[in-house]
């Protein structure tokens, strides 16, 4: 293999794929990226962690010899980073080495054979549809914070996607860690009808979100089966992310979304967030609960810490129902409030022991459910 690639292109591509590669690997080939140069001038770079793979194509300045090889992802990325801007980088295999040349610098890197590189077998991906990249990015942003990191309930370690026929056909994305739930609903894209329920793992979500950052225009093509999902993004040459799906059953979350909460609190999310953040300053790790006292048109936020004293702040609000008190984990509350890009947020409450529904308004595609803390 011999190919010459512009340094900026190579660097951008490597920065995309190398984050898939785990820093510490005991299977040596998993530390490598696969580089494949074809005679038509396209170079494909691919990385995998066995559960997730990313393939990006770029146009080489020239491909003298078609071929493929694998080298250390982080090594090549670090080299590309340090090469002077504007240089042409030549990648050439010789014996079982790859020679990297740029300007006056020359590196010889160890390689592993291309055939050892594990490629995820996609199999049939019968469901295909497209979602605008910007919408997919918002969907991820609004839900990913609620993904569980607890490995015992592995089926919560991702975003759950499913279609439903509510008033109209919709596609819903939901994530929960058992304490809070985030759901984002969009119109069902053409082609998604009959789609199997799938759980996309956290790492795939994170990698996808990074890739979306650089190709917000256009659509993302999604192809999936009950066990695999593939996201194809535009951008130069295109990036394809393929991930295994979490093999498990997501709980029937709809039953925890309250429908009859009759106490409505409307408040400015920014001043509310700031208030929660301020009173939580004195909350120690053990008692990160913030208490909300609701009374006619005001909320009194308070925290009492056995070590650090206490704090209180009154936030003006729109509230007409009977007075009540309820406690929440300050961080959970802030996570949700940070999602609301509006002047008002609605909190629909029932009592101090029941789930609270939080949303921008009735028409908002995003909906949050937060379980209180005993205070």
């Amino acid at each position, binding site marked *: 293999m011999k190919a010459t690639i512009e340094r900026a292109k190579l660097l*951008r591509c490597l*920065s*995309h794929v*190398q*984050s*898939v*590669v*785990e*820093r*510490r690997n*005991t*299977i040596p080939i998993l530390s490598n990226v696969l580089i494949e140069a074809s005679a038509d001038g396209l170079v494909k770079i691919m990385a995998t962690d*066995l*559960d997730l793979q990313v393939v990006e194509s770029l146009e080489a300045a020239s491909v003298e010899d078609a071929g493929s090889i694998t080298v250390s992802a*982080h090594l090549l*990325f*670090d080299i590309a980073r340090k090469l002077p801007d504007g240089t042409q980088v030549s990648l050439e295999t010789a014996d079982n080495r790859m020679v990297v040349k740029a300007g006056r610098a020359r590196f010889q890197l160890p390689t592993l054979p291309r055939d050892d590189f*594990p490629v995820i077998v996609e199999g049939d991906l019968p469901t295909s549809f497209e979602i605008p990249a910007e919408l997919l990015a918002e969907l991820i942003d609004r839900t990913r914070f609620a993904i569980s*990191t*607890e*490995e*015992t309930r*592995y089926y919560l370690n991702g975003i759950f996607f499913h279609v439903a026929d509510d008033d109209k056909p919709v596609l819903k994305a939901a994530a*929960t860690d*058992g*304490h*809070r*739930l985030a759901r984002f609903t969009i119109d069902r894209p053409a082609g998604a009808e009959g789609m199997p329920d799938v759980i996309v793992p*956290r*790492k795939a979500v*994170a*990698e996808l979100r*990074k890739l979306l950052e650089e190709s917000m225009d256009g659509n993302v093509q999604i192809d999936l089966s009950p066990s695999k999902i593939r996201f194809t993004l535009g951008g130069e040459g295109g990036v394809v992310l393929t991930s295994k799906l979490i093999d498990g059953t997501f*709980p029937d*979350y709809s039953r*925890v979304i309250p429908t009859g909460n009759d106490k409505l609190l409307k408040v400015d999310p920014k001043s509310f967030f700031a208030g929660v953040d301020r009173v939580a300053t004195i909350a120690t*790790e*053990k*008692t990160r*609960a913030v208490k909300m006292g609701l009374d006619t048109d005001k909320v009194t936020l308070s925290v009492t810490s056995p070590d650090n004293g206490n704090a209180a702040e009154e936030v003006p609000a729109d509230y007409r129902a009977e007075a009540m008190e309820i*406690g929440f*984990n300050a961080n959970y509350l802030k996570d949700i409030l940070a999602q609301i890009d509006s002047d008002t947020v609605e909190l629909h409450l029932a009592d101090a*022991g029941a*789930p609270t529904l939080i949303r921008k308004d009735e028409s908002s595609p995003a909906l949050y*459910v937060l*379980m*209180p*803390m*005993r*205070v």
Partner: protein
Amino acid sequence: MSEGKTDSDEEEAAIGLRKIIHVDMDAFFASVEQRDHPELRGKPVAVGGSSGRGVVAAASYEARKFGVRSAMPSVTAKRKCPDLIFVKHRFEVYREVSNQIREIFLHYTPHVEPLSLDEAYLDVTEDIRGIGSATRIAELIRTAIREQTQLTASAGVSYNKFLAKLASDQNKPDGICVIRPGQGAAFVQSLPVRRFHGIGPKGAEKMARLGIETGADLAAKDADYLRQHFGSFGDYLYRAARGIDLRAVRANRIRKSIGGERTFSDDISDTDALRDTLERIIAIVWDRIAEKDARGRTVTLKLKYTDFQLTTRARSLPQPVADRQTFARLAREILEDELPLPMPIRLMGLTLSNLEREDDAEEERPRDDAQLSLL
């Protein structure tokens, strides 16, 4: 542009480098008996019933030299060690000592996860006594245990639970072992797989057939291979072989069930043999129930047939199972209902579930419990 950080780095960074201690009392029940009965010191002692159906609940180190192990039928133990002295268990005393050592742990950290009366995980990342090193804390705990209970404990110190537990086993009895960051994978790979939590004699046998003897052999297999041969357990093995374990130390872990099972070297089909086996399992499991002081309402019998098909049959009472007779009666009833079996079985197990802990009421609820659950 990405900064070359992988998601798992972020995950670990989010957890931060932790300091976990696993403390395990040495031959706990037997040591308590030897402490309280000086005439037993230096002699092979087994705690448990010596009668036909009895099983060894714990063996002193002197008895272990003869091959006596816990959960071994007393008859077998007696054959291996004719001078073995059987002592009736005194769970109230063990529980008292257990509370003493729990107090010692709590002096150094609120994050204590007891696994049973005689072992616990401690998260000492937050050094509340300002001692400066987890190893030093482990030594202080061991000293305090020796001074206050005249018993010895072994400790493992590392950066996750899996490694800490392996470490505590390394220099037993009365030993300590530290696995520092960066050493975990190497340590695990030098071990025979039998040492891994969750791999019993049968599992080890299966692995030996696949050419897996050590952690290093295990680490050489990819996740797909392990999943193919071990199902969901494969994912655990994949991580374990790399010394990875992100589970948190949970101070308020609530047990959902308690039980035990045995895989037989020869498949069992004979009705009398089945009944005998059930009695043995009743003995083993009831000891565990008594030790944990568990009160449960549901008894479940699990049978795995030679074709690996698994059936479970359960029976519940309106109130918790109060004594061994009731427990045994329910278990026998379930088995009798299944007889005759369609084919021989390779495994039998019993569990008690729907647990309510007797000490729930008096124990002060940990603060973590204040967060209410959605699911």
